[in-house]
């Protein structure tokens, strides 16, 4: 760890921000087409974020501010761990368990800040978000556990490199199709897209945790959202789609997956939170356990 690492990390952060925000903007256009309209400019998302940051804001005490800073800081730190295709800011730190737990710092900060606003809608939203996390994370972690056992590595880039050796058929999504499906469903939950977005449901709880945010707090929340999307989609790209030997390959894979999930999300209603938990524990968890069982006891799919 020296200054070069930090500078590199900062660059990666910038790149991730530009990439993901542009993609979000393009996706808003794509979704608009699905809904038979034109949609905003592709750089609308940038304008939105900067506008929000430039506005005045209100605060409900130090924990309201501190939570937001902690959340964005935690998520940015996580984003530094994530390899951007072949590029890595800090070598040897892309351990999947570290990323999974570091990601939680952002969540905790966000939850803390939302509850710190003293608004019950926000607290309900947070309680739903945490429940949601309990639902989607366990099938996902189960599948990841199987992968780690199969390849004796818990490093993202390491796992991606192993997949690329086998060419297209070496992709984990093809080697372990059940696990791939579970991961995609879990990703939908992680991203908070429908049908698993009950924690920000506007019609039920007035957008939940975000209820009290405005101005710079909201802008930082948008930044946080972009980064966490980047982290989560990247995880799947690395774990199941062979990562990227080049930056371009990574970006293409990433964009395809993200757009696909976005389209799916726009033709589905949302689950209630307990229905989401039941769903995750019935279907994906069972699939994940079967997949892991196949890997560990039968060695199926392990080359």
């Amino acid at each position, binding site marked *: 760890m020296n200054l070069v690492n930090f500078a590199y990390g900062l660059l990666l952060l910038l790149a991730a921000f530009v990439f993901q925000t542009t993609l979000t903007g393009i996706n808003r256009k794509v979704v608009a087409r699905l*809904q*038979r309209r034109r949609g905003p400019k592709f750089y609308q998302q940038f304008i939105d974020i900067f506008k929000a940051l430039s506005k005045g804001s209100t605060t409900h005490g130090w924990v309201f501010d501190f939570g937001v800073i902690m959340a964005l800081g935690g998520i940015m730190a996580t984003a530094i761990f994530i390899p951007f295709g072949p590029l890595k800011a800090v070598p040897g730190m892309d351990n999947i368990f570290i990323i999974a737990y570091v990601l939680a710092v952002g969540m905790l900060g966000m939850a803390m800040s939302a509850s710190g606003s003293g608004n019950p809608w926000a607290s309900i939203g947070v309680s739903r978000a945490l429940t949601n996390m309990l639902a989607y994370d366990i099938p996902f972690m189960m599948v990841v556990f199987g992968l780690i056992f199969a390849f004796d590595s818990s490093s993202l880039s390491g796992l991606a490199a192993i997949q690329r050796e086998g060419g297209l058929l070496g992709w984990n999504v093809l080697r372990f199709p059940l696990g791939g499906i579970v991961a995609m469903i879990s990703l939908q939950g992680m991203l908070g897209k*429908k049908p698993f977005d009950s924690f920000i449901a*506007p019609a*039920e*709880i*007035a*957008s939940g945790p975000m209820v009290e945010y405005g101005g710079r707090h909201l802008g930082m929340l948008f930044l946080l959202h972009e980064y966490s999307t980047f982290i989560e989609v990247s995880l799947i790209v690395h774990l199941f789609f062979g990562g990227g030997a080049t930056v371009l390959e990574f970006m293409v894979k990433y964009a395809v997956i993200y757009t696909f999930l976005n389209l799916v999300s726009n*033709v*589905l209603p949302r689950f209630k939170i307990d229905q989401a938990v039941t769903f995750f524990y019935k279907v994906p968890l069972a699939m994940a356990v079967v997949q892991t069982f196949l890997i560990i006891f039968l060695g199926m799919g392990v080359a």
Partner: protein
Amino acid sequence: MKEVKLFLGPQHPGMHGNYSAHMYVEGDIINKSYALPGMLHRGFEKLMERRHWMGNLALIPRICVIEPDPNEMVYAMSIEKLAAIEVPERAHWIRMIILELARLAANLMSIGGIGAPVGLYTSVYWGVADRDLILDIFEKITGARVYHMYIVPGGVRKDLPEGIEEEILDLLDYIEGRLPEFYDLVMRSPIFQTRTRDNILLPEEVVWELGVTGIGMRSAVNREYDIRKVKPYARYDQVEFSLPYGPYSDAFTRVDFKYIEMAQSISIIRQSIEKMPKDGPVRAKIATGSALRWQVPPGMVYSCVESARGEYGYLVVSDGGEMPYRIAVRGSSYPQGLMGVEKYLPGHRIDDASLWMDTMGVCAPEIDR
């Protein structure tokens, strides 16, 4: 304190219109709730007493913005009854077309809008966009998109423009073609079904206790209780249509019935265009008083029509003067919107509160007046 006091509205994304429900929530179950109406109260009943019979034509559609035409119809019907005016035959049929188009527009908005509480925004976009095509037809017929002031005492304001029948038929074909798409998007979605099936029940006793009408009533009491059938106005007795009814009313059934009713509305409009006399007068003269200052004979009459949400009625009292003496409005969602919220929203979850409002058909402006 285990309970939290939460507000659904007036300015909450889950509430349609300027209306509020105060909910005492424990965990996510609503323990107590009260409706807080009056945010849209404009004092219509008072204002109508201060306008001439004709001036009121501009005022009345504004009572319920979602489906204004039943207002015009009940107002016209009341005056016609009091003054014993015979409405020309063609006007009856035109009225039916207008009313059914309005019902279609309201139902389209509502089946699109069901996407909002369950989070399926694509259906909102589609539904509202298709409704706009109906508004275009209205604009061609009446000159206005929303408040038409077209059905007037004695008939309709003016005749249909030339060639509008074909346009209406084309539009109906289009909407009929779109309905299956909506059905696939919303009703066939397993997630939508898990949310709405066996949820937000409306038992028959509750219907009678509150006085719920419309789709809510028909889906619960297993009878075809519709003003158009029970007490036909205009020429509803001369067209064939059958309305859905059933003994078990959950949220899904009530939304489902709206689809069937839309198909029936389309069929009614087609029949009306077919059976309508091709020409003839569309407006009878109001007998007494000057052209602008009518005088309506004294008396009291209650007239009602079936709006998209149920029985919609006016009690009109005239003392023979140039202005109405008193008009009382029965909004069709008055029972479920006030007493229903107080007695039957409790026990549901906050996840469902918005869906409750939506599928029960609570429409704020007609409650507040």
